[in-house]
Structure formats: structure tokens, C-alpha cells
């Protein structure tokens, strides 16, 4: 084992990779992600980081972490598998949309145009990875007391963390009421609003096991390309031919 001290945190390396990518012509970038199962310790920081970044309401989740216990006592192992949208290069969800509200961008990110989406949920069914959820206008603070002046109360709490939608797709959405994204199909978008300003997706920066690697797949120097080249690499349900841009390491 090396006696050298670590020179750079992978997050800082990926940040450098990202800056380099953003200097390229947009259509030359191919965003991708690698999730190292051997490093995922099931902390769910990515799940909550994503919920917090995108202010997701109850019922909407972009990135879950599946937990599994294998073996019999005392030969027991536990495995954790984060599952964001896999951003298929051949995405079944896109074909299911009756109103072309969802498509794959030239940078390989499958997105939803909330202003086009009619909330039919066909795409939820079409996704073989169950990566899409629907916004049913729920509130976390629903049912909590509103004794303003004596307690912080429901209104102030809701105002604090769920009345004002996050700037998904870099857009200012109206306060949560009847308008989009309420009623829409919602999914992971690789935090495009963050990428635009040179920041990694929230799930990546919050990964306390450094199991999530993000970057430009078309840049051979990037950490994500390095990881895709690992002999441990595989993709979920490869037999479906969906060609996910999210890879896993065994």
C-alpha cells in the first residue's frame, strides 16, 4: 500500500474535468456517470441531496438507493445500488410520450419539458428502471399546525423549504400551486442548472463514499472515462438495448 498522501479529492478532480468540458462546443460533450457499487455504503446522501437540491415533494424522487442483504449468517454481505435516471441513449420513455415533452439532448441527457408535459404518466410505465415519478401536488408540511406567533408554524415552514420550487433547468418556476412542475412527470436531469455554472450534479458532490463519478464521457482524460474503462464496469439490464449513460462498477 502506498505511503503517499492523497493529492486530490476525486470531487476536485471531477470539478477540473467539468471546467475542461464546458470549454468545448456543447454538442461535443457527452455527459455520463459511473456508480461504484464497491464504494457505495448506502448512506442515501445522494437521495436526500437530490431531494433538497430540486426541492422534490413527497412521492417524487429522482435517485433512490436500493438495499440488499445477501448470504446467510455469519457470511453476510450488504449491497447498495443507487439508481438515478440512467439517461439511456436509446430511451424507451421518450418514445412513449404522446406530446414530445421528453427527449434526449445532444449531450445525452434525457429531460422533461414541464411546459409540454401533460402528466399522462405513460413514460413512468415505459421506463424499465422505474426512474420517473409523478408530482401529485403533495406537501411535506401538510397537516402540521399553523399557530404563527407561538410556533414557527406550517406556513413559514412550507415557505422555507417547499413553497418555492428549485431552479430546475435554470428556470424560475411559479410558487407551488397548480402550475408546473406540479402534475408533471419528473426525473433526474443530471442537475443541468448546476452543470451550466460549472458545478457537479448534487448526487455527485454529496457522495460521502465517492462512489459517484460524473463527467464528459467523450473526454478520454476525464475521471468518468477512466472509470468506464474499468474491468468492473457493467450496465443495468443491458439486454434491453437501452444503452444507459450511467454505468456501474461491480
Amino acid at each position: 500500500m502506498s505511503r503517499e498522501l492523497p493529492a486530490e479529492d476525486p470531487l476536485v478532480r471531477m470539478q477540473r474535468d467539468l471546467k475542461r468540458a464546458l470549454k468545448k462546443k456543447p454538442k461535443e460533450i457527452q455527459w455520463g456517470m459511473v456508480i461504484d457499487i464497491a464504494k457505495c455504503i448506502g448512506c442515501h446522501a445522494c437521495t436526500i441531496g437530490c431531494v433538497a437540491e430540486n426541492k422534490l415533494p413527497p412521492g417524487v424522487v429522482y435517485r433512490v438507493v436500493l438495499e440488499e442483504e445477501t448470504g446467510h449468517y455469519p457470511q453476510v454481505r450488504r449491497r447498495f445500488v443507487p439508481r438515478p435516471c440512467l439517461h439511456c441513449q436509446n430511451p424507451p420513455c421518450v418514445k412513449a410520450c404522446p406530446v414530445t415533452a421528453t427527449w434526449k439532448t445532444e449531450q445525452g441527457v434525457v429531460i422533461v419539458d414541464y411546459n409540454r408535459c401533460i402528466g399522462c404518466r405513460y413514460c413512468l410505465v415505459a421506463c424499465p428502471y422505474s426512474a420517473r415519478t409523478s408530482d401529485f401536488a403533495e406537501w411535506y408540511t401538510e397537516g402540521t399546525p399553523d399557530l404563527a406567533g407561538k410556533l414557527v408554524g406550517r406556513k413559514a415552514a412550507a415557505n422555507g423549504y417547499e413553497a418555492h420550487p428549485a431552479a430546475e433547468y435554470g428556470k424560475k418556476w411559479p410558487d407551488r400551486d397548480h402550475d408546473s412542475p406540479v402534475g408533471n412527470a419528473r426525473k433526474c436531469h443530471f442537475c443541468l442548472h448546476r452543470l451550466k455554472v460549472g458545478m457537479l450534479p448534487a448526487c455527485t458532490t454529496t457522495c460521502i463514499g465517492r462512489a459517484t463519478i460524473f463527467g464528459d464521457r467523450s473526454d478520454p482524460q476525464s475521471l468518468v472515462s477512466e472509470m468506464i474503462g474499468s474491468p468492473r464496469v457493467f450496465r443495468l439490464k443491458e439486454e434491453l438495448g437501452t444503452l444507459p449513460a450511467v454505468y456501474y462498477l461491480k
Partner: protein
Amino acid sequence: MSKKKLKGLEELQEMFDVNMDRRYFLKCSAFLGGSLLATHYLGRFAQAAAGADWSTLDLPIGDAYTHYLPENQIYSVCQQCNTQCGIKMKFVDGLLAKIDGNPYSPWTLTPHIPYKTPIAEAATIEGAICPKGQAGIQALYDPYRIVKVLKRAGKRGENKWQTIPFDQAISEIVNGGNLFGEGQVEGLKDICTLKDPKIAKELAEDSAKVADKKMDLAAFKEKHKDHLKYLIDPDHPDLGPKNNQFVFNSGRLKAGRDDLLKRFIGGALGTENKHGHTTVCQGSLYFTCKAMSYQFEEGDWGGSKKFYWQADTGNCEFILFVGANLYEANYGPPLRNVKLTQGIVDNGMKIAVVDPRCSKGAARAWKWLPVRPNGVAAVGLGMMRWIIDNQRYDARYLANANKAAAKADGEPTWTQAAWLVKINPDGSTGAYLRGSDLGMPKEKRPKKKGDGDWEFDPFLVFSGGAPKPFDPNSEKDAVEGDLLVDTEIKGIKVKSVLQILKETVGARQLSQWAKLADISEADLTDLAREFTSHGKRAVADIHRGVSQHTSGFYNVLTYMTLNTLIGNHDWQGGLSSAHTWNITGDKEGKPFNLTKQSGKIKPFGISIIRHGKKYDKSTIFQGFPAQRPWYPFSSDIYQEVIPSIGDAYPYPIKAYFLYMGSPVYALPAGHKLIEILSDTKKVPLFFASDIVIGETTMYADYIFPDLTYLERWEFAGSHPSVTPKVAPFRQPAATPLTDTVTVYGEKMPLSLESLILGIAEKMKLPGFGENAFGPGLHLKRDEDLYLRMVANIAFGDKPDGSEKVAAAGPEEIKIFESARRHLPATVYDLKRWQALMGPEWWPRVVYVMNRGGRFQEYQKAYKDGQLANKYGKMVGIYMEKWAATKNSMTGKPYPAHAHFMESPTDVLGRKLDDEAKGFDLTLLTHRHISQCKSRTVGNYWLLALYPENFIDLSPVDARRLGFNDGDQAKVISPTNEAGVWDFGHGHKKPMIGKVRIVEGLRPGVTAFSLGHGHWAYGAGDVVIDGVKVPGDPRRATGVHANAAMRVDPVLKNTGLVDLTGGSAVFYQTQVKLVKV
């Protein structure tokens, strides 16, 4: 291998309410049935279908995202658990919008970014923090947070409240009166009556003489006849002044606030009773390492510090984790996980985990050893036997008897392995052999302080066939000794410390140690071999699972002795300890000495928890056993505070002040405290500082709302595995949500600070208000203390000022000001702050605040294969002081070294055997990463992740007991046969939870995670000003089985305890699960 789904995809989706369950189905039907919403959607469907432009699919990313701008960010420190990770708080329209990791902090990146990185550049870099940290926003904006002072409007614990003005509350607490229509209550002004520091000093000195039998009681009474009125009991002056009848108790408390409280509770109100909560966490870990840190100082053992060691995680080659819940807790996930995952996957690091439960860490380890809980020390002792038998210890290190010898070997520390110990006629071990025992002369040496001489009586090793005297601290005369010595010198039987250990572990065969631990002998040998195959780069890293036993102290000492056998302290990849920059300024050259307090009283007397004192050396000694245990070697004994108040031992109290703690919820057998807290005779006045009405503060007379950690100051300190020197702190960041009050003419939010300052102003306490720290240095509001602490950090620790941080340039100062544009003058005022700091300090203070503290660079924390920030002293493994001190309950001396202590025992040392009575499962607790102990249940994002906890069972036990996955079970124990929490006033909550069957659990053990099963903290109904505030059922889910934990049969109102290290015992209760 068979495969058992713990949580399948479906279940996980359900977890986030994704499924179309009945509730959603109804809702969706409503949408389509013509409601306003449905019309809206359908309308849009038609519109989209008719007018969609199918040719251009473009969604330009807009500019609405503003988190990345430095002027929208403030750095602070998380407190969702005690890991205290550095955080970056991002604001949108004055509201806290997101919390991420502070990239300057070694907690969130390895290595963290250089300290000199401009904050504009750091604005887009984030470190990683855990899910709790990110959900902290929901602790801030918790609908159940209180914003006004509450006074009880019913009986204690009835949860009926009225809001009252702050000034009224302060007056009532200070002045007392018939406050609740239940009779007179004494206020603080009548309790804390001794105010004259000179009288206090004289009483303290002479009462100590009376206890030491150096002064006659009658003589004392005569000498102090005018001042006996200040004492609790003039016949027992060593109990101290009546001021001691005011008791302060804290849960989570860090520096800054702690310094303010020391000034207030001790220095101004003069009570000895300021107690923290260490023993509910990992008390015996702290107090064993404290015991090991005693140095030989001017003829006595001193200079010890309360601390502990952990592995320099990222640089180890092998770590043996024992009773440590790595990846989910263990100080802490963001800080240590990355070092472990990268180490294991990329760098060939090996870890082994000793734990009855297959934790997430164990699930990835080289070996998981599901130890028998009561046999946890046997693994370490068995390893020790193999290591000594095979001479796999670091003999070169162990032979060094003093500092000079260590220095010659390039070792930062040294130990006592070669020191000679006198053996008593009965074979037990006694004090160290000294020169005077062999007729050598003592040497007179001048005291450091210049106040006289002390006599040096040398210690001895055996070397070259003869005893050899030495000074442990000598830097010149290097002395080494033989390691295994068993001989007689001048008729005195002596053994070396390593010899004593060899015989201790030699008392059992390897197979017997393995059997005691219930692991295989082969595994035990493997562990010992691996541990001694990496030089200094192996560590036994331990935590609560080792310390929270009745034998906790000796369990910890076993593993820490194991580390000492390879001498890994202060080596890269070995054991490390925490290092911080001084904030109080009581050092040469510092800008502000904040310990100055004119008129300060030095508290004295026996504390309510009887810590740091010997029972048989007190005037209330009445033979063994004592009424309740005394704790000569530990402090902050959380589980002892309220029960001692209940028993009025050693004296009754008059007022109790609880800060940010929930002993009822957090302590084993916490239910026994409810009866005491409800009794206004035993606790005549109870006031508390809390953010929500909690499981313990619901019994208070007054609750003062506090600010959350996201709105206020506090200096977070460090943790042992953080190798760089640091000084992180919280600062005002989120807009305070509590009411504004006026104290000393200053407007400020309701908080702990305003509570303290309010009482100080009302009582005109010394060291507060005008000239509190000296002429012209006032203490009228929070920043008067805290900003000055930041200046002390900015200065550094070098007296010549050469360690000062850079001054922030105009751009950074502009960002600083802009980032605080949403803050009201009650917590931040630029002109006021600048005036307080002056032009010299202001830009440097800004530089530090802009980075959320001060952090040494990672590379600078290491030098030549060692840690740059060293412990650098003697590591004790044989405590002769222990052998000379009598246990207050048994009257026997405390053992001086690592050994196997049968457990669990009651306080009289009698082994408990509840298993024989049919209580067939050992109850364990653990932490799930999404919850801290008592105060994260209001974070709804976290609840969505893990809505309720479970009662875990192994398949073997489930089959045996007839449980299926998902069955309801009630936890009952010998001391809670009904299996309920009784809150008084007819309210009860049974300890019923859902059974989850897992392979990763030792048969015979059952476990639940902490944080669920609430009945207060927003989970139960309360009444405020006559209006019912209903509890939220989401906060009441799951089970909290602490009330099943074993009550000590002698004490009857306290859980089991470790009499040496002070720990509250969490892992040694036998329970039964009953089908519901």
C-alpha cells in the same frame, strides 16, 4: 448463496410514496373527476396536442439558479449530529435554500482545498455531507419550533402552556415566588447567595481540610461562624455552598457557548454543578483515554485531559473496528467514509469489524466477527495473548521508559511496559516501585511555578540484571528496561507492567478467549497476526459498543493497550488525536483574553454526581457501600444527575436548568427520570432551553426558545481522526425565527445567549455587561464574546503573531457583507461588528468567517511518516492511582490495568443473570445514518427515507419465537415487564415495533435504531394559550425501547452503569419479545 431482498425496488418506491396506493388512487381520480386541477391538466393536454411544435426540441437552460454565487453563501458548521461537518449554506431571497459541504473543511474533502483559495473560486466547489446535514433546513423551518417563552399552565408534564413575556420569565426565575399556584418557589437570587470570591476561597480551602481530617469541624465552624449560612450543611462543609443546589445540565454543547456557560454557571452563580452528557455517548472511551494521559508532574499524577484517540483513517493499512458503527455514525460518515471506501477499493486497506450486528461497515469488511456482546473485551485480550506469546509487539518502543529513550528512537510517545510494579502479598498489583523503596535518596527540585520545591523519587526498570532508576520526563537520560520481569529486589516482589499483562492474558488459553467472545480461535489468531503485520499502520479503533458496558472502562483499556503494544500513537496511519486553535485567548500574545472575569467565584464542594472525589475521603463517609456511586475518575455523568436529585444525595437541589438535552429520551431507562422531574418537591424549579417541546423539556416549568445551529454561533472543535489542526465554527447565517427581546439595552433573538444575559442583567452578575472582560470590553450580546473568539483564531497560537491569517481583500469583504444582506441587526450589524473588532482585526476576522473557520492544510498535518499535530507524551497503561482508590460501592480498589471484567453487574459488582429468567435476547441499539438520537424526527425528508425503525431479529430467533417479518412485537424486560413508557397524567406508550428479520445479526441479539418512537418533539398533542396543537403522527412512528433497558437493582432509578468510566450501559440488557 441465497439472496434475500431487504428492500426491493417496489418497496423503495413505496418508501417515497411513489406507488399508486389507495390514497393516491383516490387523489388521482379526483384530478380526473373535474376538479380545478384536472381541468387545468386536461386543458393543457388539448393545447399541447393541438399546438405542439414537433420540429424543434430545445430547452435552453435558464439563469434562475443562483446558489453558486459567493454572495449567496455563508459557511458554518452542521450539528445534525456531533460530527460537526463544515457546511456551506446557500440563500435565495433571504431563505436558506440548500446546505452542502464546506470545501475548506477536512470533514468534507480529502484533502480539503487550500485555505488561501479565494472564496469566489470556492463558491462552485462543494464538499460531501450526509443526508442529515442536507435535511438540516427542516430543523430550521420546523413547524413545531417554539418562538416565545413558554410557562407551564398545568401540572408538570401535562403539556399545557402559556406564552409569557421574556422579562416576566426572567424575573420569576430570578426572584421566585408562588409561581404556579402550588406554593413558594425559591428563585436563583435566593439559591446562589455566596457571591464573595474571598469568602468562597476560604470556605473551599478549609472545607477541603476538614474532609482531609487536617482541620477539626468545630474549629472550622468557629472560624467561619459568620459564613456558615452560605453552606448547604455546616456539619458537612465539603458539600459546598448552597449555590450548588442550582444544577445545570447540558446535552449537545460545544465551545463558545460552553465558555459562556462556564462564566455564567460557575464563575458568576458559583455552583459546582455544571454537567454535560458525555457518559450517554461514549463516556468510558473518553475517561479511559483520560486515565491513560496522566503524566508524572512534580511528584504526582496530573496533566490528564478528557479526550480519546481514533485511527488516522485514510492512512492505515489495517483497522480493527470494535463496537464502532462506521459508515453510519462514529464521528463520522463524511469525514471517514471516503477514506475507508477509497482505502479498501483502491489502496488495499483491510478492515475487520467486531460487532454483533452486521453494520454497513461490517458488510464490506475483510472479516465480520459477530461477537457475544458481553465478551467484547475477550477479542482484544485474546489478541494480546497471541501477540505477547509470539513477541509480535514493538519491543523497541515498549522498552523505552522515558521521554529521552523515546526521542532517541524517533518515537513521539512512550509507555510504562518496562516499569516495575510492587506486588502485594496476595499477588495483586500495587504502586510503582520507587527509589525510596530501595533506600535511594529523594531529590529536591524547584517547582515550575516558582512556589517552592518538590521531591523527586525515581521510578525503576530492570536492566542488565539490576534495577535502574529513571525520570519519566527526562529529555537527556534515556532509560530502557527489560520487558518481562518477575523478580524480587531487596525483599520486594516486583514485576514489569508487560509481565503483569502477560500473566493477565495468560490466565486463559487462546481457545478460552475465543470461546468467551464466541468467535473462532482461527479468526482470533488472524486478527492478531494482521494487527501486527503493518508496523505502526494498524489501529484498533473502538467506540460505544466497547465503552457502554458495566465493564466499559476495562474494555476500552484493553483495546487501547493493544494499540500501545505496537506504539502507533502519532504515526501516520496510526492513532491520532484532535488539535484545535485556542479561542479563549488565555495564552501569550492573543488579542482577547476571554477568561477574564472580575468578581469570579471559584465553585467548590461535592457535586450532585460526586465526580472527581473519593467517597471515603468525604465527611459523609458512612462505610461501604455508599448510598449511590461516587465517580473519582470520570465526570459529566449524565445518567447520575436526575436520579441523584431524586434521591437528594448528597443533598437536595432547588433549581435545574437543562440545555439542549433530552435525558428522558436519550438515557437507558430514561423513563425512571419522569417521576423525579414531575415531582416539584425534588425539583422545585425546572427551566430549559430547547427549540421544540421535547420528551424532557415537556416536564419543565419554563422553556426558553433557542436558535437552531443554522442561526447562531458556536465553536465546533474537532474529532480525533481529523489530523489537521482546525477551528471550525457556526455563525449567524439563517434569519432567526424566534421573537426579539431586549437585554442590556440590546435587541437580540430569544436564544440561550439572551436567556443567560437576561438572568445576568437581572442579578447584576459579575463578568457580564459593562467591562465584563476588563476595562472597555463589554459582554452585552453574543458577538461580544464570539467575534473576539474569531479574532483569537485569526491570530493563531504563536505568541509573536507570526501565525496570523491573511487580511481579506476588498473583494472578499464585499462578498462577506453582501452574503449577510438578509440578516437583521439583532444578529448582525456591519458597523457594530467592525467597531468591535477594530481596523486591525476586522479584515482578518472576515477572512476566517468567509471560510467557516481555520483549517491547516492536509499535507501539513503529516511530517516524515508521523503526524504533525502530536499527542507527544507518555501513554499510560498501568494506573497506580486506581490501585490506591477505593470503589465507593464495593470498598475494593479499582484494578490498575486491562483485564476481563465479568459483566453485566449491578453497582455492588454482582453479576446479573436475567437470561436464566427467560429474558433470552440481548437488546442493542444502533444509529441509522438518517437519524441522530433525539432531534431529527421533524426532518420530513429523512422520515420519507426511513419512516419507521424496526426490531431486528435473526432468522434463528424469529423461527424459535414464531415471528414473521412485519409482525408487531412488544419489548419487555425484567425492569419493565409491562413494556411501556409512562409519561404521567395517564399517558402511556407501549414499546411496540415491527419485527424485521435479518441475516446480519447474531442469534440471541435484537436491535433497534435510535431516533424513532417519539411521543413529544411534535409527535404528541400540546396546548398553548388554550389552543390545542395536535401532534404529527409521522413523528410518532416506530419504537424507542430505552425504557426496557435494565434498571440497576440497587439504585432502582438508574440504568446499569460503569463505575470506573462512568458510562451509561446500552448493550447489556436482556429482554423478551412478546407478540402483539
